[in-house]
């Protein structure tokens, strides 16, 4: 019957709070703390949930009906959902799609993710728009201000890379170029896209050293997308810096920020990031514009003289892509693999072309 019970409360860092109904993996005693992020995708919720880049986050969907077409095991972007909580206006209990294998509720239970529904998600989004990215806590308890503060200060995402990167190196065979992929939280669809291009891929855990990677003698390096703040990734940034002088390096998403940092660019936090499948970027070389899929909270804001911006965001004019003037090194901020959202597969072709050029010169 109607009139679902309001049984949990979302408290934002700025003190504002929302009541809602729990679903999915719900343990009354367990408080969930993490960074809030909103996602504007009209479709592709499953791909977003299972994107390792969202590990540890509390994700608020702006699309009001989530779960309409259910979830399946083909569209997973990693082995599981790594969100801490999912916040939706309404969840769908009766999904319909020929590939649907799970309901949203069942999927979250199975992946130990708390769901929260029946709250004004648009109001929540607008608060984030005004206040910027915030931490939040979801609780059943009457926590004091001090208790909440303590929980927030304990919550960090510093070690997130460790959680989501490959535990050890593995190889995906292919007949084309050999790529060393540094796994900062890689999505299945990135591997699939590179595979489709025929590449042989050696996937390295994020904390592999440059020497370990170079030992595999790849034709080029690929820095994947992932989660976290590059300020907390000094080791990986150093590895990237070293690799960039020796091999062609291509990067997307978080990898692009790691590369940028390694090349001396300034990285700054954004007010509320880009999260969704409808971000317009424009090539500064061709003038052509593309709708892209994105998920990032930090952005390149300044480049040294030898770095050239290649793409910008049509709306906020932020830098969406860079390359090095002389080195075979380039990156884009978005997710060219789509899933969710539109693919811009030519980016992979561009990367491979760059690596091929380098190979021809250095072979």
């Amino acid at each position: 019957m109607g009139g679902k019970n309001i049984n949990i409360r979302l408290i934002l860092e700025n003190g504002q709070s929302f009541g809602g109904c729990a679903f999915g993996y719900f343990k009354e005693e367990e408080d969930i703390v993490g960074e809030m992020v909103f996602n504007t995708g009209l479709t592709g919720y499953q791909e977003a949930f299972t994107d390792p880049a969202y590990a540890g986050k509390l994700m608020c969907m702006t699309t009001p009906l989530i779960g309409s077409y259910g979830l399946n095991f083909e569209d997973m972007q990693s082995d599981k959902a790594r969100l801490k909580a999912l916040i939706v206006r309404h969840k769908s209990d009766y999904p319909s799609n020929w590939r649907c294998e799970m309901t949203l509720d069942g999927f979250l239970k199975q992946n130990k993710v708390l769901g929260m529904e029946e709250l004004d998600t648009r109001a929540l989004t607008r608060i984030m728009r005004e206040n910027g990215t915030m931490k939040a806590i979801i609780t059943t308890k009457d926590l004091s201000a001090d208790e909440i503060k303590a929980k927030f200060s304990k919550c960090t995402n510093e070690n997130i890379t460790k959680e989501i990167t490959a535990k050890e190196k593995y190889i995906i065979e292919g007949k084309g170029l050999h790529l060393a992929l540094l796994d900062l939280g890689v999505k299945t669809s990135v591997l699939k896209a590179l595979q489709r291009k025929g590449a042989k891929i050696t996937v390295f855990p994020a904390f592999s050293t440059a020497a370990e990677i170079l030992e595999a003698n790849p034709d080029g390096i690929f820095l994947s997308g992932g989660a976290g703040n590059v300020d907390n990734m000094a080791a990986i940034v150093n590895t990237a810096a070293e690799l960039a002088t020796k091999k062609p390096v291509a990067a997307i998403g978080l990898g692009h920020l790691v590369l940028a940092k390694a090349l001396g660019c300034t990285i700054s936090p954004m007010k509320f990031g880009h999260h969704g499948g409808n971000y317009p970027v424009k090539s500064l070389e061709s003038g052509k514009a593309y709708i892209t899929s994105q998920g990032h909270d930090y952005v390149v804001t300044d480049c040294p003289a030898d770095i050239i911006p290649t793409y910008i965001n049509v709306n906020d004019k932020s830098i969406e892509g860079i390359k090095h003037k002389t080195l075979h090194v380039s990156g884009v901020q978005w997710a060219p693999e789509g899933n969710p959202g539109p693919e811009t597969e030519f980016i992979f072709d561009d990367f491979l072309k760059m690596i091929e050029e380098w190979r021809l010169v250095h072979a």
Partner: protein
Amino acid sequence: MPRNLDVKKVLVIGSGPIVIGQAAEFDYSGTQACEAIKEEGVEVVLVNSNPATIMTDAGLAHYTYIEPLTIEFLEKIIAKERPDSVIAGMGGQTGLNLSCELHDRGILAKYNVNVIGTSIASIKEGEDRESFKKLMERINEPIVESVIVNDIETGVKFATEAGYPVVVRPAYTLGGTGGGLADNEQELRETLALGLQLSRVGQALVERSIKGYKEIEFEVIRDSAGNCIAVCSMENIDPVGVHTGDSIVVAPAQTLADKEYQMLRTSAIKILDEIKIEGGCNVQFALEPNSFEYAVIEINPRVSRSSALASKATGYPIARVAAKIALGFTLDEILNKVTGKTYAFFEPVLDYVVLKIPKWPFDKFQSAKRTLGTKMMATGEIMAIGNSLEHAIMKGVRSLEVKQHNLDHKGSKDKTIEELKRLARVPEDERLFHISEMLRRNYRMEKICEITGMDSFFLHKIKNIVDWEEELKEIGFKGLTPELLRFYKENGFSDEGMAGLLNVSAKDIFNKRREWNIHPVYKMVDTCAGTFAAESSYYYSTYDTDCEVALNDKRKVLVIGSGPIRIGQGIEFDYCSVHCVTSLKELGVETIIINNNPETVSTDFDTADKLYFEPLTEEDVYEVILKEKPDGVILQFGGQTAIKLANFLSESNINIYGTKPKQIDIAEDREKFDELLESIGVLRPKGKGVWSTDEGMKVADELDFPLLVRPSYVLGGQGMEITVDKDELRSYLDNAFKNDSKNPVLIDRYLGGRELEVDAICDGENVLVPGIMEHLEKAGIHSGDSISIYPPQNVSDAMKAKILEVTEKVAKALEVAGMVNIQFIEFENELYVIEVNPRSSRTVPYISKVTGVPIINLATRAMLGEKLKDMGYGVGLYPEAKMVSVKVPVFSTEKLPQVEAMLGPEMRSTGEVLGLGKDFKEALYKGFVASGSYIPKSGGIILATIRKREQENFVPLAKRFAAMGCKFMATSGTAATLRAHGIEVEEVKKLAEGVPNILDIIRSGVIDLVIDIPSKSNDIASDAFKIRRGAIESKVDFVTSLDTAAALADVMESGLVIEDLDVYTINEVVGTLR
């Protein structure tokens, strides 16, 4: 790329009269396009034959032509204005076809006119079946394979390759008879044999069946640089098979996973890239529900009804952006006016669900076949926005104005489960309610999915609503708690809808809400799901926590719109609402509009200061009032939809600008109105309201036949008829009281005189009559269906003075503030009042244009207390224009199987065109041309079938046609009369007289015009009805009034030829220099 500076003067072609399939959406897109072009300093030449549109207002374009939309007239305009460019995709299929024809005939080349936006070559590639098929094959996109066959074997061979089932569609059979689905070879052989036999040309289309596929649409925009975005996806709840214009549509698509969504989006963009669209385009897909298999059904390389819906659903102004692209801009250079911060290269995201439900004319056309199929039948549509689908469904249902506030539908309750199953299987207008009733009776949902082909996702939502309705009945009014009530409101239940289920009044529910403080909040439609601060003020209600409406202390007025387009309440009222808003803005008043029609200019995001996209019910309007606390409400411009709210608002102590509800009631209440007229000495045809058949028969004895009969409180003459004897009267009354015993039937003496009409403005002291309109047809034909002439051609100055005098008397007696529409009959030199509408009417847009009097502006100011004397247009009768204008109605009867097409007191037209000329004949000629009427030529063959008592009257007319070289064919009676008067005539058999009979002759295509003066309408079993339908379906022109026929003779005798005619801008027409 910056703007193309070679473009200095652009021709924009409108879509012409409102017909089914081409309605107000093109006024919306054309208006937006004109504004977008003007903004760039480019001159706009606009041509549209439809005077009821905003786009044809003087001043919207630089040069506005209300002229026939034919190649000849377009060439005249091009020769006169010498535009350097034309934009093809803004005037619907009409505009597109005309642009192609101008190109094909070398007219564009002759005058050096470039096509901007999507090119003619691209348009043709997208529109032509054969080249589209080739294109799709080239880029490897699947289509629905089909083949045209003349023999069975070819069909079988095709089906073997394409796979069964296949659909057989015989060519040129009426209403697609003889076609059908074939599941295997044997069935195909049978169906095809029959189909080929029935087809006039022995031809049939065999097509791979995509029955049961999901129908998904994408609205896509591409610029000259090849940048391309998908603005919106839409999913039809009705699967493939029902025209998308007749489908309930949800945006964005709900049952597609990202993979499927991206697959179709990619396909759409690939198609646009290949055709090189520069502007908007609609791509329709059929998606197999159980695989990734899909087929491209068709594309529309222009703005469309769907693009209007997508614009309103997302807030993204497609027509505006398409116009900018045509001028050379790329998407990343065009600012998104809604956010004011982002650019047009951006795919809108929605944090709500949008539902469109079509509005069908079956309430007006009782005899119509209601089965929905591949031919669109809806006249209009409503859109509802909610934060869940249930919410949107409930809002949508009450927006339809079908007296339904929940899914508990009386018409479905009365039916057996077998009947409901049958009704669910064949799509028709009330299917939503029938399905609800089946679910209510615990019929298995999965089986309904199977029967209807609808996705279970949607049926679950309907089932949710039905379950909640049933639970509410169990809970009862006493059992309501604040939590429960809030839950129902969150899910879109209206007070009235709940009250109906609980057997209490809406007021009871409202009082509970007030007690528990349960009121809606308003959310913004901003293209970006709240992620940017938007500048638009486009709202919809939810029962969430956070309200986004910013209030201020300015003086503000709420204008109530007119809802979906229907017969009798069309685009004219949107014209009025928009002008009212514009006038209020000029007065410095903040304007708020409520409307639910996505096709209109009034619901454009920047028409009013604030737009509330909400149902036009008492509750929904009242909640907006509670929120905004406007100084007052204006109802006069929203047709009957708005006027209906008068009593409620007045009882709720809301200030209503203009004529007060008490006076409105007097005008609509037969007895009170009679008393009023009598007290001021104004004549009206004798008549009375009666409550039973017996009473009616008694009244008939006091009055003389013929008698005009109609139910009270109606719009567009619904259910009105002329009865000539007691039998007809009795049958009408019996039927009327059977349908509605709670309201009286009005019986009037029918006066067969000249019908005259005025729209007047009254400020309480003075009256201004901008112009008197004379109807060409005698009284008895609905004013909306009559040819109307301004200035009047046959009215004496004394009678004009009398009209003014009576208008002043009536307006003052009714204490009119603002608009009043009065219809008169001049009969034996006396003036009778037949109808008074204390509101704006459908003639206002056209009469405003041809008189040059800004009627709505003056009326709005009068309502707010200004005096006519201070407005600069004087009082009394405004000086007549020198030029003559003739308004000709346009019908959509060919779109509606089994619908009566004879002119009568019931309104049937969907739109109108205007002919403007130096004199009456030129105007009439243009009016006929613009309406697509056939004008007889020497040698033309006229088929006449005239009822007995009119046969003698027909003779002089027949002589005129004969003198001009027309030949006659007629049925026996008419033929005998004609022959007796020495007119040569070939007699044809009546239907019962064997073959070839009159119908066969009409279908054979030899007839040019049918003059059919029948004795009775709406009798679908009669020969006359079949003849009219036969003529419609064979595309043979026909007239059902001798007056109309005489007008055709006038035009023919005038000897006018198109070459001699001039074209005039609207400014030239009203005599002011531009």
